[in-house]
């Protein structure tokens, strides 16, 4: 066991570091740009120098890189950049889906390079009000009209819909067949008439998601991916590429930040860090934090060896999100009555703990709830049987639902 790069990995890392050193934009370069524009400036520089969408083929703006090379670049990029990633859905999910399912070479040449360069941003229109964990229970209607399809319905939890140029969309094209068989997959221009976008205000007070309404929206049949009724298979390609990883970087709620707080505040007139119960809790959280870190090292080792990682990394979100929630809550307890103050000036770490406390419930739900993640571990890792499904083999329009209309 060792923690070193192989010689090839070390060479690649040095190359990446040199590129980042020479090309990462300066504060001057970023001046006057909003966060999206800043991310786009950086994406364009990566693209122009062959460092964007590393895993993609060179023809479409990629580098034909290996998975471990992608990881190494991400590690090095993370050291110099704290930019947001508005391209995650487009580059990470929509691009691979287009490559797998789009047969029109002109489209691939039209869309993929602009995805890679960050010039165009894509969003994902999958979730619906009546289909949360039961994702395939989509009700947004697609009806054929000549060479077009007409779309009516509603999507929800769409990240970045308001600044996206294009979207990937799954619709119900036939409600008279069982759930998974009646779906059809498209991509579309988000400026198409009939699309209305409404931001959702979250409990944290911010708005990262939207509701997207479709009223008689026309999509040409040429923008269909896969056959009519094959939408679920196409959607699985997209979802396979969904990253369940928790965003790193910057100051976050973890053992380090809570320990620092416990050194500052008192319990029974002594620093809280000397309290045995505080120590026991910190130890338990450290076990989880270190356990996740070393689990990711095992995954990296598999990638480094060119083999497929085991299922162990599936525990990340299920462990990390509730842990962060509990730690934020506990940190506020350590502050006693002051824990309720959420103020940039007055609160510890500019209100990190209070902000995290309100943001974290979303992370326990997004990308698969804790309960769904536990099902995935039980079924796909341990091989336990699925629960019986009441909608199996039944035409979708005869399945009981809480949806109206």
């Amino acid at each position, binding site marked *: *066991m060792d923690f070193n790069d192989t010689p090839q*990995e070390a060479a690649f890392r040095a190359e990446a570091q040199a590129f980042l050193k020479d090309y990462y934009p300066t504060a001057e370069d970023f001046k006057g740009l909003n966060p999206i524009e800043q991310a786009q400036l950086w994406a364009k520089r990566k693209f122009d120098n062959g460092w964007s969408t590393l895993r993609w083929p060179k023809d479409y703006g990629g580098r034909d890189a290996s998975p471990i090379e992608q990881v190494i670049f991400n590690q090095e990029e993370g050291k110099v950049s704290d930019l947001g990633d508005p391209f995650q859905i487009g580059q990470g999910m929509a691009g691979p889906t287009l490559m797998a399912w789009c047969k029109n070479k002109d489209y691939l040449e039209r869309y993929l390079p602009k995805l890679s360069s960050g010039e165009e941003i894509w969003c994902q229109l999958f979730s619906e009000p009546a289909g949360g964990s039961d994702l395939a229970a989509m009700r947004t209607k697609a009806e054929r009209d000549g060479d077009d399809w007409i779309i009516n319905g509603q999507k929800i939890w769409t990240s970045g819909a308001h600044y996206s140029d294009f979207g990937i969309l799954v619709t119900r094209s036939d409600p008279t067949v069982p759930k998974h068989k009646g779906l059809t997959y498209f991509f579309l221009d988000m400026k198409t008439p009939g699309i209305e976008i409404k931001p959702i205000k979250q409990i944290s007070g911010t708005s990262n998601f939207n509701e997207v309404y479709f009223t008689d929206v026309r999509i040409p049949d040429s923008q269909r991916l896969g056959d009519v009724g094959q939408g679920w298979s196409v959607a699985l390609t997209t979802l396979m590429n969904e990253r369940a990883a928790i965003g790193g970087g910057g100051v976050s709620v973890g053992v380090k930040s809570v320990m620092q707080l416990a050194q500052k505040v008192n319990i029974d007139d002594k620093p809280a860090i000397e309290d045995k119960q505080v120590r026991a809790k910190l130890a338990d959280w*450290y076990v989880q934090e270190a356990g996740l870190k070393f689990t990711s090292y095992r995954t990296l080792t598999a990638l480094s060896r060119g083999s497929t990682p085991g299922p162990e990394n599936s525990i990340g979100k299920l462990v990390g999100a509730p842990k962060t929630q509990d730690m934020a809550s506990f940190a506020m307890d350590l502050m006693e009555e002051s824990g309720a103050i959420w103020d940039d000036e007055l609160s510890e770490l500019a209100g990190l703990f209070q902000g995290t406390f309100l943001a974290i419930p979303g992370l326990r739900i997004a990308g698969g709830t804790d309960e769904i993640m536990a099902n995935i571990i039980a079924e796909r890792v*341990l091989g*336990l049987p699925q*629960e019986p499904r009441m909608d199996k083999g039944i035409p979708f329009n005869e399945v009981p639902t809480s949806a109206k209309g």
Partner: protein
Amino acid sequence: MNFEFSEEQNLLRDQARGFLLDNCSTRVVRDVLEGDASYDAALWKKVAEMGWTATVIPEEYGGLGLSYLELVVIAEELGRAMAPIPFSSSVYLASEAVLAWGSEEQKLAWLPRLAAGEVIGTLAVSEGQGQASATSLNATVSGGALSGTKLPVIDGDIADLVIVAVKSDGGDGASLYLVDLTQDCIERTPVRTLDPSRSQARLDFNGANAELLGIEGRGWSQVQNLYDRAAVLFAWEQVGGSDAALEMAKDYAMGRFAFGRAIASYQAIKHKLAAMYVKNTLARSNCYYGAWALETNAPDLPLAAATARVAGIQAYYFASKENIQTHGGMGYTWEFDCHFHYRRAKLLSLNIGSEGTWQDKLVTALEHNNAA
């Protein structure tokens, strides 16, 4: 990044698992648990013949001179099989202590026989209820003669050699002494315990011959270092046991039907087993780091050991109790093997210090790292 075992180490794991499947079924565990024997002497002999007791002992002392990565592989499999033999006492504690602090003479006298399994060794620190500390010890050595009582001493009834922590007037308050247990003036009394597949005893020393091991007045820091190293090995046994308990629960849930379907298809059971998998995975990954820190004697060893230890304790306790729960009423019967894991998980969590003690050590190590 190479955070994985080698091909050879994986082969060793397969070989060890196969050997224990053939030679250490739960029937073997049950025989010791229910019978009068303190351990399975035949299994111990075979394990020694395989060279497992000699794994990390250097060749000049009759060992194989392999690394701790090989030893943790064996520890995991022994834990999985709940082997009723004094392996942890003799290999992780006594052999390690002699290796670390023995004089050349002491090493030549004891290591070849420990390596061959001819001699069983153990460590005696506790003197009764509560956490032992450098200032709590009453046993003393005067003019080379040891007096005092140790309770409980794991494998104390069958061991030939014991490393004893005694009170010292100088230094950190304690010293380690090496004692040949075949002396007449030592009274050994087996004690009834939670896990009768592993025996424990009370040892009364009345002027027994004792040789200093290491440095006078440094005994407590020696014990802490020994515990750090042993904690990694104990944690691998706990990971092996945790996985075995999860597999047992899974197999039963797949085969047991209620209300017309396998109970493994109910979310209440699936989520329970998923929670076991999560804890086991965290423990295993922490144990990987512990193994690396042990093998390289890394400055991070105290933190790595405490993390592996706390994770191992928590994973095995959870898996063993929820395995019983998954089995329902049958899990509570003497006839089923579920209780073996429940007993062993608790025993392993008490040997070398409890969860709370190790949680505290973990945070102390973190404080030390942050200050550095």
